[in-house]
């Protein structure tokens, strides 16, 4: 007896010590607890708010009675944006905590090994707030995700499509592409090239730039050789600055199309605003809908600041949709059953529900009555395609003397129609 109790106490101490305290519901005491897992880079400055947002959702859901009569306990683990750490964390959550749903991660490089080596073999639903690589789409197309994979972040396809759209609207006839030689850069560079060619715009060169090269002169000279009318830049500010200065000094065009990664003050200052007059950037955006504004209001009330960090609205929706799907699947449902319910809670023909405690309670009633719901979330009406991908509205921006300004807002329908026409 004493033995048993001390083990129990030790276990409790361990749980407290690791900070894995269940997010307690205040309104109703529940007789049971259902765990869900999250693997997020909470040791990174921008990762912490993403996790806090997920916790906020769990709190709200618990305040209206939790899921299927059980209190939800979010077991949160850090991945340090390191695939090895992330996989270990996910393994522990799936094998030891037996979670049916795993939220995460942010970096595609972490989410991917978790998906292929932990959640798919373990038959656990994985919902990521922030991974954008199209490698997931390919995996899903090959049927290797078993329908267990979802993400609330638009793929690189959206930005690449808008980049090509800008080139078309500006009337450029030939474009050279400079891309960062990593997963993200190769991905977006390849898609932009395909889109441009589809639009009948000549791609004169696709040049990869490595990190930490002492000089980009040779690469830039290669891109210049085709004498393009414009240049597409899928680069980060460090190599972007070096390459663009070299590009301009060798007489390259000032017609530039930039990915969102160059939305940087360092880049603007070091290249010089006088050379960036014809440079336009692309980015994905939150929709201009009442549900997105409601999220911002709720977030400010809770945390006392604007949700400016990356992936916050996406994390909110990922968590809420996962919980709604669990609610639809009922008590003790397993990963595949829950994943199958995602369509039921994001049904365009369903009854619209808001993304808060009241909305969750309403959804509970509708689902219990056999109906379907349309979740109106922080990123708008979330709609997953067959591969678990979502789309997003986009913005076109440009540099000003002080920073950046938004030039045009491209609504979701227009983005989707354009992406579809590129296939």
């Amino acid at each position, binding site marked *: 007896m004493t033995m048993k109790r001390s083990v129990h106490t030790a276990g409790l101490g361990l749980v407290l010590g690791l900070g894995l305290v269940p997010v307690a519901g205040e309104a109703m005491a529940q007789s049971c607890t259902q765990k869900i897992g999250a693997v997020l880079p909470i040791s990174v400055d921008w990762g912490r708010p993403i996790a806090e947002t997920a916790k906020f959702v769990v709190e709200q859901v618990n305040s209206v009675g939790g899921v299927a009569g059980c209190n939800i306990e979010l077991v949160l683990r850090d991945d340090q944006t390191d695939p090895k750490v992330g996989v270990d964390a996910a393994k522990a959550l799936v094998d030891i905590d037996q979670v049916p749903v795993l939220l995460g991660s942010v970096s595609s490089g972490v989410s991917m090994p978790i998906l292929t080596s932990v959640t798919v073999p373990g038959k656990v639903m994985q919902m990521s707030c922030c991974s954008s690589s199209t490698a997931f789409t390919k995996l899903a197309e090959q049927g290797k995700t078993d329908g267990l994979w979802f993400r609330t972040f638009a793929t690189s396809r959206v930005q690449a499509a808008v980049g090509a759209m800008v080139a078309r609207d500006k009337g450029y006839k030939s474009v050279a592409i400079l891309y960062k*030689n990593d997963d993200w850069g190769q991905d977006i560079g390849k898609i932009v090239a395909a889109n441009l060619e589809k639009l009948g715009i000549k791609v004169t060169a696709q*040049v*990869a*730039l*490595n990190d*930490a*090269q*002492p*000089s980009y*002169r*040779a*690469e830039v*000279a*290669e891109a210049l050789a085709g004498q393009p009318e414009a240049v597409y830049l899928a680069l980060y*500010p*460090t190599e972007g*600055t*070096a390459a663009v*200065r070299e590009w*301009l*000094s*060798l*007489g390259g065009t000032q017609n530039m199309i930039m990915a969102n990664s160059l939305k940087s003050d*360092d880049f603007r*200052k*070091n*290249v*010089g605003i006088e*050379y960036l007059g014809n440079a336009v950037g692309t980015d994905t955006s939150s929709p201009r809908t009442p549900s997105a504004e409601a999220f911002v209001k709720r977030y400010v009330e809770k945390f006392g600041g604007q949700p400016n960090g990356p992936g916050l609205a996406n994390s909110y929706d990922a968590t809420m949709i996962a919980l709604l799907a669990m609610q639809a699947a009922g008590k003790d449902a397993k990963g595949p059953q829950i994943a199958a319910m995602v369509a039921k809670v994001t049904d365009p023909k369903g009854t619209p529900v808001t993304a808060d405690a009241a909305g969750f309670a309403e959804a509970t009633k509708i689902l219990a009555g056999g109906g379907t719901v349309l979740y109106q979330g922080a990123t708008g009406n979330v709609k997953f395609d067959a591969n678990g991908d979502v789309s997003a509205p986009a913005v076109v921006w440009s540099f000003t003397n002080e920073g950046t300004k938004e030039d045009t807002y491209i609504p979701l329908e227009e983005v989707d129609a354009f992406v579809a026409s590129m296939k």
Partner: protein
Amino acid sequence: MIQSLADGILVGAVLSLGAIGLTMVMHMLRFANFAHAELLTIGAYAALVFDRVFQGVNATLGAKLAPLTLTGSLVVAMAIAMAITGASAVLIDRFVFRRVREKGGELSMVFASFGVALIVRNVIGLIFGLHTELYSKGIAFAVVVSRDPLLLIKPDQVFVLAATLVIMLVLHLVLSRTTLGYALRAVAENPSLAQVNGIPLKRMIVLIWVIGGGLAATAGIFYGLTNHLSPVMGRDLVLPIFAAAIVGGIGSIYGAALGGMIVGIASSLALLILPSGYSPSVPFLIILAVLLVRPNGLFGEVRA
């Protein structure tokens, strides 16, 4: 093709200058100093600070010496930066390398140099921030030398090439024609024997660091002038510079100069054959190729 060749020579000039300092230190102090490239960073940032100071004191100094982006203030700052970098090199030797030299082996020196490189890089990052800095924000436009075949050259790079050649010539004359040069070479050949002949070893070591540091500072400033400054520029440059020194043969100034050009040209021409993204592998391929044919480098001598 012509453009790639010209680019390679112009980029190679900076590598040559860095490699000359490295090869001297490596030959005379007998260890591979992986912290050498950090001396370039120290020099470049020291010049940045004094360039800004002089421009603040006297605005006319900030005027560009057309067609270069080089300013009068930067020229003066360069002299001070060379002195500061030389002094830093001596201090690093005094506090780290000398102690390791007395107690540890050659390998300990190499590890110590890695440690020094990390410390210098991060201290500079702490002071100046990790972002890119520039001596002059304006973009130096390339001059069209010929339309067909297309050849574009930046005036700054021609200046760097010319200055490098002059520095190499001066160094050669000092080493081959002066008593000081003989003393330095004697230390390199055999430190004990040189000491027996009345050459003050400690003073010679200080001198080697001052010269090596000064050359590194010049290379760093020239790199900053034609590219940009960042706390990790040493890390980015260390491999090409080592490749240049090894290809040229350790201890050979002309070898290092030629090695720099070879690495520069090869990286530039490589893009004609290799897909972009593979160019960082070129310096290693050159090291392999040269060492297979000439194990001591192009100009290196067998040393007992």
